[in-house]
């Protein structure tokens, strides 16, 4: 045990989650670091930036006492990773830490939405939305853009609005629906509430395809939003907990797996 502790303290375990929108980094062990940066157009360049930022913070990814696990859709771009693991497994590992045990993880990402069941510490089942941006962060981003506001403003506005239905499942068609609402002079907060309701409905539909655990947590870019979590809880008729560090779930899991999946 003592030896293990010593080892952990002398090693750096780095988890890098290159998502479609944001890249998240978590370091555990000797250093305790956490940061996020936009992925931009090139995962490769983002990877170089991450390497530099880590070095500034005193973590040299090339050194013997650093182990790196990469995950996320851009995981293969991290050429200095010791191991590459899918975001499903990493989210499950990170989610387990955030939830303090077995749970159902609902991850609303920039390009896809995942529902992961963690039972006795391992993934027992998962679902991902299929080839469509409805019910993802991308949908919210596009709609916020159309309304000329930021994502945070979209959530703030929605709280005061009276939701109007957005029935199109397709992001492109939903956008034209919103344009016609704007044309009709409908209140921006009402449209904002409708936009969020639409995402909530899609996410709930996906999550309800599987039996959830007692504890359900929200991860990904929207995970800190109490408003989103409460709307989702309402729709599912179950308590979905927001998590402060939810957007780091994948990177955190990767950092844990960097330590555990040693060969």
């Amino acid at each position, binding site marked *: 045990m003592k030896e293990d502790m010593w080892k952990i303290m002398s090693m750096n375990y780095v988890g890098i989650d290159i998502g479609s929108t944001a890249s998240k980094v978590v370091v555990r062990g000797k250093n305790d670091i956490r940061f996020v940066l936009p992925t931009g157009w090139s995962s490769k360049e983002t990877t170089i930036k991450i390497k530099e930022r880590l070095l500034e913070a005193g973590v040299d990814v090339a050194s013997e006492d650093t182990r790196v696990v990469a995950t996320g*859709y851009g995981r293969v771009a991290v050429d200095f990773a010791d191991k590459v*693991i*899918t*975001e*499903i*497994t990493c989210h499950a590992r990170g989610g387990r830490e955030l939830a303090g045990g077995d749970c159902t993880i609902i991850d609303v990402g920039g390009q*896809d939405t995942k529902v992961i069941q963690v039972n006795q510490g*391992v*993934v*027992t*089942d*998962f679902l*991902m939305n*299929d*080839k469509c941006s409805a019910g993802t962060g991308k949908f919210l981003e596009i709609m916020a853009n159309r309304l000329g506001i930021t994502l945070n403003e979209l959530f703030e506005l929605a709280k005061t609005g009276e939701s109007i239905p957005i029935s199109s499942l397709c992001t492109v068609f939903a956008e034209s629906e919103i344009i016609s609402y704007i044309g009709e002079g409908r209140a921006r907060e009402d449209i904002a509430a409708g936009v969020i309701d639409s995402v909530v409905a899609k996410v709930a539909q996906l999550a309800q395809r599987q039996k959830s655990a007692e504890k359900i947590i929200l991860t990904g870019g929207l995970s800190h939003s109490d408003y989103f979590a409460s709307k989702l809880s309402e729709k599912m008729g179950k308590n979905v907990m927001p998590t402060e560090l939810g957007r780091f779930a994948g990177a955190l899991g990767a950092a844990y797996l960097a330590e555990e999946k040693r060969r």
Partner: protein
Amino acid sequence: MELIKDLPEVFEEFAEQRQNSFLNVKKLKEQGIPVVGVYCTYFPQEIAMAMGAATIGLCSTSDETIPDAEKDLPKNLCPLIKSSYGFAKTDKCPFFYFSDVVVGETTCDGKKKMYEYMAEFKPVHIMELPNSQSPEALELWKKEIIKFKEFLEEKFEVEITEEKIREAIKVNNNVRRSLKKFYKVMANDPVPMYGHNLFKVLYGSTFKFNRAAIPAEVDAVVEKIMAEYEVEKKIEKKPRILVTGCPIGGATEKVIRAIEDNGGVVVTYENCSGAKSIDQLVDEDNPDVYDALARRYLNIGCSVMTPNPNRLELLGRLIDEYKVDGVVEVVLQACHTYNVESFGIRRFVNEKKGIPYIAVETDYSQADIGQLNTRLTAFIEML
């Protein structure tokens, strides 16, 4: 028969069989041998074999002609149907071009309606396949088989005798026996070869015109595989995957690749590229040869049947025999019967067999390779 060639070369030869048969089919035609083009596992091949005809699978596996097909057919339709129609209509498939007659069955809605249009530019004989396996259905299917025999006799001015049919049954049963022996090598753990090579041989063998020559050749392959396996286990133990669902081949081999490039190995195929079309023999002792054929073919457990108990029976058996760790179901986009049935298959696999299951929906494009890789890698990581 002894194989002189190395196994990788043998597997590639099988993989190229479809291409090579493009040339052979022309030779057959020049020899005056009739060619019957077919689309489905339900097709009673022995009837055509009994008149000395060559049969050839026409199911297309590439997205090349889908834009042409979509001029006539809806976009939201199964890629196998669209691609097959597209190749037929644009005359880009030599098998279709050289087929004297094309046989279709009333299997799924998309296919049977597509055949109506295909019949406008090619002689198409439709067999009415019942959608259940009741005694009444069996009677209808038997009549349809006899009707098909009479159709061939009239069209080609030949007589198809029961004796000839019996001979064809024996030949095809031997093919099935040898292919079963072949795929059975995958029951070994670790496996003696990759599932992609297993697929190449199973798929390639359907494009060999000389059916009687298949057993000796396949037996020799089995012998070589097992002899090498005895000496050295080249592949380490890996999570063992069963593939089920829609037909695969060509473009959709991307699913096999996504499994085997990411740490898994396909040990058996339940779909019609595999055990579904090989597992059952035709009863050689049944005095009524048409009854024997009707029973054997009607019993195939495709999702067009309702209910479809035989699929579960075969699935359960394969999961046990091949010590399967996880089931991957391939659903082609807009294939309603397999897509609907996937809920029941998941339940069966999870609850009755106690192993994980994943369904992936895909088409003939290569656009979803990233998503397929992520899903299937995560699935394998979880086993």
